[in-house]
């Protein structure tokens, strides 16, 4: 080591203006920056790169070994695509894929329409202070955890004491009736995020050049025409971008929403099971790590393909906005 460094030092001294760019020289020269990046890089190794490697368990009949991580991975028997075969011949695979995709499509479209609607309305309201109050109120659910939101929903839907049954004088056991849940989940999932998304669009509307509106007013365009012909076209790039990015994540469901809000109720599994809850339940309660890891890898691979292709699409449309 020392022998390697010393010649570099000597060279540095003898040719101060033209340092030789050897590896050790570079490491030494970039030392402070490397130290800055080190903690983050170590984290990525332990919480990303090693777990990626650990995905081989999807091809194994996994058992935890008392001898540690590597032993667990090595000693588990190879079963090839057996876990996947098992997963895809079960009814679950189709159900969870369908649920994940349909719910996410619902969220993407509802979010888009309602956020843009509120953003445009709020930009046109006369009392700007009131708009601030609205925005602050609408942000509250966004900042709360799914556990808290789960309690909120329970306050309304509790079969014995909930407000809905009290007000409607009904006796519906909400947590056991699957037919209501697609609507409840779509509503809650959209409701939580609207505040945040509408502020994003609001900021864009406020950034539109006011001379467009002046010119339109001079030409006698009414408000609706202005919105239709100026505001919305100006928002289209952002709308496209947000939707494409959301489609890239369409294979990832919001675990909290589908686990906390229906309280993991077994009677609702048909309408609340998504990839993430299925993987979680397989991992924790049924203990079927093989199937669970197969579903997990299936989700990751399809998700990655979607993300890369949607990103390529974004890059084509608007290189500035591409994620990478």
């Amino acid at each position, binding site marked *: 080591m020392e022998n390697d460094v010393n010649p570099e030092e000597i060279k540095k001294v003898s040719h101060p203006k033209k340092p030789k760019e050897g590896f050790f020289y570079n490491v030494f020269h970039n030392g402070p920056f490397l130290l800055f990046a080190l903690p983050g890089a170590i984290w990525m190794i332990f*919480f990303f790169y090693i777990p990626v490697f650990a995905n081989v368990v999807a091809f194994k009949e996994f058992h935890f070994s008392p001898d540690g991580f590597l032993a667990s991975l090595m000693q588990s028997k190879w079963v090839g695509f057996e876990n996947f075969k098992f997963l895809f011949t079960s009814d679950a695979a189709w159900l969870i894929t369908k649920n994940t995709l349909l719910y996410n499509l619902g969220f993407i479209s509802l979010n888009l329409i309602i956020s843009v609607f509120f953003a445009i309305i709020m930009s046109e309201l006369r009392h700007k202070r009131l708009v601030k109050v609205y925005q602050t109120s609408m942000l509250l659910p966004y900042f709360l955890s799914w556990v808290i939101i789960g309690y909120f929903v329970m306050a309304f839907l509790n079969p014995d004491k909930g407000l809905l049954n009290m007000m409607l004088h009904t006796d519906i056991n909400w947590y056991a009736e699957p037919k209501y849940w697609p609507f409840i989940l779509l509503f809650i999932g959209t409701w939580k995020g609207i505040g945040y998304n509408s502020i994003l669009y609001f900021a864009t509307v406020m950034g539109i050049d006011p001379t467009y509106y002046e010119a339109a007013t001079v030409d006698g365009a009414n408000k609706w025409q202005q919105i239709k012909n100026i505001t919305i076209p100006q928002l289209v790039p952002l709308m496209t971008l947000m939707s494409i990015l959301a489609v890239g994540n369409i294979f990832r469901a919001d675990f909290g929403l589908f686990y906390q809000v229906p309280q993991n109720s077994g009677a609702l599994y048909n309408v609340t099971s998504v990839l993430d809850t299925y993987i979680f339940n397989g991992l924790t309660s049924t203990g079927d790590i093989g199937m669970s890891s197969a579903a997990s890898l299936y989700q990751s691979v399809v998700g990655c393909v979607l993300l890369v292709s949607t990103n390529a699409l974004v890059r084509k449309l608007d290189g500035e906005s591409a994620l990478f």
Partner: protein
Amino acid sequence: MINKKKKKKIDSVSVHSFSKGADLFFNIVVAIFAISCLIPLFFVVVISLTDENALATYGYRLWPKVWSFAGYRYLATMGGELLRSLWISILVTVVGTLINSTFTSTYAYAISRNTFKYRRFFTVFCLITMLFSPGMVANYIVVTNFLHLKDTLWALILPMAVSPFNIIVMRTFFKRQVSESIIESARIDGASELRIFTQIVIPLAVPGIATISLFAALGYWNDWFNALLYIQSDNLIPLQYLLMKIQANIEMLSASSGMGSQFGGSLLAIPKEATRMAMVVIATLPIAVSYPFFQKYFVRGLTIGGVKE
């Protein structure tokens, strides 16, 4: 002159404002939605202040028949368990946020500098982590079987200790806010890289660091998922996870606290519903009270690294 006056008039009245009738209508529409965002919290606060017998007879009501502080009084007597969870939540949030904002900014700063030879490598190293998700199962196996973090505080802190997305956001922010010339001049004056970072770069980047710190703090305070996966010991349950357990099984309130006998002498007297909702209020309050003041940072977070370079 006349033109100018006319322009001003258009600016303030016509651009971005509805006619009076439409304004009223849309105000009502937005207000209804805004209220729908606030009312659940109000509702939960009201339930926590309702008498237990009234809850049993009339159910949850937006305005109770009988008010009562029994829920909060019981929380005070129950002490131990709640305080422990509160302490765990605060500890995890503070330590986690410090680690997260430090490591995220140092990494982002390093890859934002053109003078850092390996910036491309480390940028790609970080971007790859956003592309693919290792998945819940693999993470679980690594955390429990390799890092052996199960039932430790680190299991609540480390999985969220660095945010690759925030690194990319902050990289853009550093590139834009901290010009190379300032750093170069400090370097000529003989400042070390660490000193440059702490005394020049951080002060310049306060808005960005504040934003990622707030997001990190929010993430840690609201986290229940890591506890659900990795925590079994009763001593390490954060507040959100405690709430989750109590929601699934309200009896835990009396069973685990062991304080029932001190409260009116009988277990029946425990105001379980109100107490549970009082705990929800306690978990929500820090956020509900503070976010309006931090809102501008969160909103700025949306645009802070919006433009990629």
